[in-house]
């Protein structure tokens, strides 16, 4: 069973600032659809009146990582894409993974790729969907 690693999304923006226009449009139009498509993520919308910090989308994951993304001067569609990207991530840090092993000859017979041992016509015509 799949457990979504994103716990909650907090949308902090100002109802009057100019760079929060995309955030406001997102709240008015797309936030409800996003909430329905992702029922296991809680979306908190907290507008703070008056001049404040830049509009930010804060994502909290099950392992405790908190990731803040600036959404100043972004359109509503871009914010939707960003939110879906955060929802599909896990909370692990985005760091280069270093492994303690190294070889100069990683493959002797050629590295496997999904088209090895398949008929070569697939490289031209591509996969065909089977009618069901």
């Amino acid at each position: 069973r799949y457990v979504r690693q994103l716990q909650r999304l907090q949308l902090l923006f100002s109802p009057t600032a100019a760079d929060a226009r995309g955030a406001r449009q997102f709240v008015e139009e797309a936030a409800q659809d996003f909430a329905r498509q992702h029922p296991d993520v809680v979306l908190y919308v907290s507008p703070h009146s008056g001049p404040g910090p830049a509009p930010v989308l804060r994502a909290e994951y099950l392992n405790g990582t908190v990731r803040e993304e600036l959404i100043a001067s972004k359109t509503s569609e871009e914010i939707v894409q960003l939110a879906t990207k955060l929802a599909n991530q896990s909370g692990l840090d985005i760091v280069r993974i270093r492994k303690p092993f190294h070889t100069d000859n990683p493959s002797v017979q050629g590295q496997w790729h999904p088209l090895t041992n398949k008929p070569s016509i697939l490289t031209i015509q591509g996969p065909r969907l089977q009618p069901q």
Partner: protein
Amino acid sequence: RAFWGGRRRKEEREMEADRAVPEKEEMREPSLICPLPQSRSYLPPKDLQSCLESHVREIFGPSLPEDWQQTPLQEKRLKHRLLARLAAELGHAVPNSQLHRMCRAGDVLGFYRVPVKDGTKINELVAAELPPNLKIIWQQ
């Protein structure tokens, strides 16, 4: 010596300012700081068209084309009279920026058919039905 003298003067000024500010606040408490703004909400009544037609016939009198909606509002006095009467009756006035668009009675009818909502979108969203995982934290 000059340093300490300067500091003492600043402290005295601060003490005077502190004393003055609470007095002013006490004076202001009984009266309202600012009155509540007028609500600009407007809903078009159901008999809008007949009401408008009667007003147009009253003001323009005999010089009406067959379709009353095509009456041109070129005469400034008549236009003002019509718009002032409608504003007084319906409680919703045409703003100055839209006056140049009102060339015919049909335009006025179209303008008065549009309802005007008063609150902010966030307040509307708070009142509307939300999915269970969407929470809006807004304290006004």
